[in-house]
């Protein structure tokens, strides 16, 4: 695959976090019994008229502000016409010539290196219903609960280079829409879905190759595999002297391949035109200003601030700003613990994240509140607990055995910092291990470690290993 460049553009549908539909007052909750959340507007009964949801418009403005796009003060809803049973009106209300957001960019990281991708546009539209094909009598079932759900379609420029970069962008975008509270990001429920436009070209060639659109990428892992497969397919085709046909392809996760869904010949002709049911969407300056003042600090800014304010490495700052909940947790933890921020970062990105991953919980549902984890960190900072003992206390706290101090007391886990006692234990160990002492003096560092181990054993692991080290070295060199 050398000598080729892979070019990817993503179209992402983010379901906007609203209670009601884009153009009707029906509910948008996931998982309701079929057709119980489809109103007369959603099922396209004659005589019904759409009225747009103010909250969905606000969410689109939030997104435009977050990506520093141009927020069009006047945008137009258009009809995208096609016939399919999941679309009762025979058209989808979308935006075509004048979207609500034009341009903007998203920053993301690949292997710690910063990249940016420009956005073409982001526009408001409504979702279609769902079809169920696996019915016993061979008919297709139609559930219109999802019909009319508000979506923001976010279109990137075709300037992502390869599968990994595309996935890194998609993850950053996913994090951003959740951060600013416009989408719940639930990919299993279809709240965040991507289509990828993939093409390949010879290295150094300016002209883009013919692209294929891959649909049905409902996880980041599938996205990476699908783009990789598709790029390889196109390169092999071209190297054999063939030609890439512009077409829509479907990713089949089970077979790990893409296959043709429809070719250009039967490509849809959507015949867009302005929807006569809807006047232009006109935004007022004060409305945009108001949303701007209510915007949270954005992930980029928070990451940079964490690195600066708490003197954290870029990696830690990145992990701690993976979500707004994680960032909030960290700041609450630092505040409650009143100890070195790096210690807080280590425990949140280490033990806490590992425990959350294992329990498959988001940080917002952590079994340890920032205040309770802070209780543990205080005992590390004041020398009561060694790192190893602290992990034991952490596990007990996670298992619900109580607060840090309570567990330390109950398990007798207080670190021995009584220097007289340690001196005595060191003397005992030295006296009964003449061989190791001799080896150490002959230059065998291993012997020293064995002596430390013996002292730690004598304290049942409750001594500070550093203190033991110091005392041992002093006595051995004396």
């Amino acid at each position, binding site marked *: 695959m050398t000598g080729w460049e892979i070019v990817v553009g993503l179209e992402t549908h983010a379901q906007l976090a609203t209670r009601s539909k884009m153009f009707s*007052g029906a509910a948008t909750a996931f998982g309701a019994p*079929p*057709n119980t959340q489809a*109103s007369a507007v959603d099922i396209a009964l004659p005589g019904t008229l759409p009225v747009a949801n103010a909250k969905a418009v606000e969410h689109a403005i939030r997104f435009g502000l977050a990506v520093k796009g141009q927020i069009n003060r006047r945008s137009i809803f258009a009809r995208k016409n096609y016939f399919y049973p999941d679309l009762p009106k025979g058209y989808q209300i979308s935006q075509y010539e004048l979207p609500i957001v034009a341009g903007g960019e998203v920053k993301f990281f690949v292997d710690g290196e910063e990249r940016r991708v420009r956005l073409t546009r982001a526009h408001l539209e409504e979702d279609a219903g769902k079809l169920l094909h696996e019915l016993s009598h061979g008919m297709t079932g139609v559930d*219109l609960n999802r019909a009319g759900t508000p979506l923001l379609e976010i279109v990137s420029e075709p300037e992502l280079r390869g599968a990994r970069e595309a996935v890194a962008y998609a993850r950053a975008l996913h994090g951003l829409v959740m951060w600013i509270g416009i989408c719940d990001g639930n990919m299993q429920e279809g709240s965040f879905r991507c289509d990828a436009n993939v093409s390949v070209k010879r290295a150094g060639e300016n002209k883009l190759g013919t692209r294929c659109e891959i649909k049905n990428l409902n996880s980041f892992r599938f996205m990476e595999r699908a783009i990789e497969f598709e790029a390889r397919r196109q390169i092999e085709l071209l190297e054999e002297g063939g030609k890439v046909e512009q077409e829509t392809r479907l990713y089949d996760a089970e077979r790990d391949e893409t296959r043709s869904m429809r070719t250009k010949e039967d490509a849809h002709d959507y*015949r867009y035109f*302005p929807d006569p049911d809807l*006047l232009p969407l006109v935004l007022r300056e004060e409305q945009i200003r108001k949303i701007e003042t209510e915007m949270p600090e954005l992930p980029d800014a928070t990451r940079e601030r964490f690195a600066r304010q708490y003197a954290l490495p870029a990696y830690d700052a990145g992990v701690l700003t993976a979500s707004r909940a994680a960032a909030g947790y960290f700041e609450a933890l630092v505040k409650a613990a009143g100890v070195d921020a790096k210690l807080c970062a280590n425990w949140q990105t280490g033990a806490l994240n590992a425990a959350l991953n294992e329990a498959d919980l988001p940080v917002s549902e952590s079994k340890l509140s920032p205040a309770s984890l802070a209780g543990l960190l205080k005992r590390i900072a004041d020398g009561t607990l060694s790192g190893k003992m602290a992990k034991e206390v952490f596990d007990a706290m996670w298992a619900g055995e109580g607060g840090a101090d309570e567990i330390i007391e109950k398990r007798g886990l207080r670190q021995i910092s009584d220097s007289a006692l340690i001196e005595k234990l060191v003397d005992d160990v030295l006296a009964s291990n003449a061989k190791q002492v001799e080896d150490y003096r002959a230059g065998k560092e291993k012997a020293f470690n064995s002596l430390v181990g013996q002292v730690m054993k004598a304290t049942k692991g409750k001594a500070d290993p550093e203190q033991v080290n110091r005392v041992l070295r002093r006595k051995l060199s004396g």
Partner: protein
Amino acid sequence: MSLSHDQIRRIARLARIAIRPEESEAALERLNRVLGLIDEMRAVDTSGIEPMAHPLEAHLPGGQRLRPDQVVEPGQPQIYQSVAPAVEDGLYLVPKVVE
């Protein structure tokens, strides 16, 4: 500008309207008349005039009204599905479609 029979077939297909071959000529003539009217309107000099997206735009410069994000319409599938040709377990049934 005028249409060909091939274009009539394509437009009919896109609109899911069945036009029999013997109807094609009449459809062609009627659609060409509409296009003729559009050509006539094109003769008007509209340079420097910004196109409207909606006929009422000039009267309603504030644009469309929005509604607050509230659930005010309960689903009433029993009523809506009473006129559906086929229903099962709350689903509307249609002939099998596979894309």
